[in-house]
């Protein structure tokens, strides 16, 4: 095998650390929440450290693979890091830390096992970003979802249960579709390893193309459900609006997993988008039109929202629309814009859910309904924060949303039907401005009667600080847009470089002529046995 890189053994750490922490959390249980909180924060900090270390380790453009049990690549389980996955790891860990700090101000007491579920969720997220094969992507999706079911129901209540049932049901259907796609792709290519698949998918016989393309489109469907593509987005507003605020903020990264999977599978594995015969080209025509409708529906929902939480949830849908417009370009510029917008919209979307929660808990009578009500305490601070968060998510200068949208517009300049893309994005931004302006003025200015909410002395300052930090992160992303874009540009280029990925995982010598009997006709029982996977996945 190749000489081990310094970081190689650390690649699995972002998956192991949350797993161990979650197990410890269950042992500590609710008996001592302070110990849980301390452990939880320490572990998330360590996770952020590891993620930054891994980011640094591959920032020279190297792609690194960790082979579990040292089984050679296409047979065993591989975890792969490159700039794309480490960027997602850092983003996840950073967001998790912010959400955790927000939650330990009180939210985590409202149900059992918050911290354990939280770390299982991180395990699933990190695993999905690290994994180098399609079936483990499914497994980590499931880990992520199982934890998210628990987190979503955190706090209980009839509405949450009902929305939770729908959420679980739609994700079970999505998982079934995922397995059909996995079965189709395995049946045709005889492999599920990303790198191996990238090689095999290009050599599939003409007669099997239809099956392979069906599999690819089914995969897109699955990722579209995760990423809340129209018309598969209906679960999202109900779920996010019903979940407790810190959880909804953490879920801001969950839709991005769908986006990541689209980039990884259709960008890296199934084609660089340049050739017309690659599978990426089969899928690409669907993405931009669906993204445009997603943006339009998200914006319409945002305008029609009667509650602040619905507003925040539909904002997530709208931001996924913008993000997928950029991803749908499948070229380096488009993907650079997409990566920037992904980081931005995760931060801003999470901040929006948190600030909405801060406002809603102070409006004891009207909660998050967009109706005139009593003035709230700390209205000046919260109003300013709401204003700043709104600026970030709408995409007005000087925060990162502006740079992000500008980049998306720039990247689509030479796309077909550019007028439609530009028109949708710009009109949507205007509509969002109106929506947020109306919401903000209703809540902060159209007030009457006694002030509700805790006084400054009695209120916990951490939640506000967390929102302020997220806004600060958005500002930093805008101020340091130059270096950020440069790094993300390299990320995008690497993500579309299939050959680099294949070489890193399979080794440069093996990828052209695999030493496996797969080249024989795979009609009867000649597909390749893979004992290592059997052991690892149980």
């Amino acid at each position, binding site marked *: 095998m190749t000489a081990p890189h310094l970081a190689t053994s650390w690649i699995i750490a972002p998956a192991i650390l949350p797993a161990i922490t979650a197990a410890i959390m269950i042992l500590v249980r609710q008996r001592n929440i302070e110990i849980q909180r301390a452990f939880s924060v320490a572990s998330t900090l360590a996770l952020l450290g590891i993620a930054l270390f891994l980011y640094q380790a591959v920032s020279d453009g190297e792609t690194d693979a960790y082979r579990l049990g040292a089984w050679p690549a296409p047979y065993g389980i591989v975890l792969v890091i490159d700039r794309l996955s480490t960027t997602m790891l850092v983003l996840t860990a950073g967001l998790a830390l912010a959400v955790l700090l927000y939650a330990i101000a009180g939210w985590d007491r409202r149900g059992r096992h918050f911290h354990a579920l939280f770390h299982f969720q991180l395990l699933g997220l990190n695993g999905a970003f690290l994994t180098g094969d399609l079936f483990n992507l499914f497994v980590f999706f499931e880990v992520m979802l199982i934890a998210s*079911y628990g987190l979503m129901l955190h706090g209980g209540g009839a509405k949450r249960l*009902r929305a939770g049932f729908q959420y*679980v049901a739609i994700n079970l259907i999505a998982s*079934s579709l995922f397995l059909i796609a996995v079965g189709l792709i395995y049946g045709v290519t005889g492999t599920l390893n990303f790198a191996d698949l990238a090689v095999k998918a290009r050599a599939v016989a003409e007669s099997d193309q239809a099956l392979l393309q069906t599999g690819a489109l089914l995969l897109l469907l699955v990722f579209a459900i995760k990423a809340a593509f129209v018309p598969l987005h209906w679960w999202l507003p109900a779920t996010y609006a019903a979940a407790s605020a810190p959880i909804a903020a953490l879920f801001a990264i969950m839709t991005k997993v769908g986006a990541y999977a689209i980039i990884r599978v259709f960008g890296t594995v199934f084609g660089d988008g340049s050739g017309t015969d690659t599978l990426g080209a089969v899928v690409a025509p669907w993405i931009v039109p669906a993204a445009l409708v997603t943006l339009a529906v998200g914006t319409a929902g945002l305008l029609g929202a009667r509650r602040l939480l619905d507003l925040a949830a539909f904002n997530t849908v709208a931001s996924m629309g913008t993000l997928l417009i950029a991803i749908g370009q499948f070229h380096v510029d488009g993907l650079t814009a997409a990566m920037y917008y992904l980081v931005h919209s995760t931060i801003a979307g999470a901040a929006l859910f948190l600030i909405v929660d801060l406002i809603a808990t102070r409006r004891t009578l009207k909660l998050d309904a967009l109706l005139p009500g009593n003035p709230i305490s700390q209205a000046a601070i919260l109003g300013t924060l709401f204003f700043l968060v709104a600026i970030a998510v709408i995409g007005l200068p000087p925060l990162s949303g502006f740079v992000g949208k500008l980049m998306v517009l720039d990247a689509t300049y030479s796309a077909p039907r550019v007028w439609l893309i530009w028109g949708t994005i710009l009109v949507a931004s205007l509509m969002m401005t109106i929506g947020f302006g109306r919401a903000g003025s209703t809540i902060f200015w159209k007030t009457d009667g006694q002030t509700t909410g805790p006084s400054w002395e009695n209120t916990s300052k951490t939640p506000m600080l967390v929102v302020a930090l997220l806004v600060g992160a958005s500002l930093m992303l805008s101020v340091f847009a130059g270096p950020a874009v440069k790094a993300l540009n390299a990320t995008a280029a690497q993500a579309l470089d299939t050959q680099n990925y294949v070489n890193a995982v399979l080794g440069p010598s093996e990828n052209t002529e695999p030493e496996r009997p797969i080249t024989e006709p795979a009609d009867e*029982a000649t597909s390749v*046995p893979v004992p290592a996977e059997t052991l690892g996945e149980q």
Partner: protein
Amino acid sequence: MELIVSSAIGLMTAAAVYLILQQRTFPIVVGLTLLSYAINIFLFTSGRLVIDEPPIISGADSYTDPLPQALVLTAIVISFGMTALIVVLALRGFLETATDTADLPEDDLPEDDLPDETETAT
């Protein structure tokens, strides 16, 4: 054999889709279970249908592909856990709201004591 297996998958999927489209939680849960059965058999066939062969390379000329079997095993475990969870969810929902419909409850805004002002002001 191919015809039996494939029509079994198709029938189960069709029944599952019909059941999932129902309004109440119990048929949906049964539908999801049926769907996962269909998927498991489908996954199994992705390694081709072979009878009486060992799932390992033992020196014999032919063998059956063990990977789909491992995949199916994993899928069974996961779908079992998921089914248990969704049954509990459906039950809790039924006990808390005294109805087993899968729709979301009507979203009532808090009592609005200033209805006229809302209309005119916006």
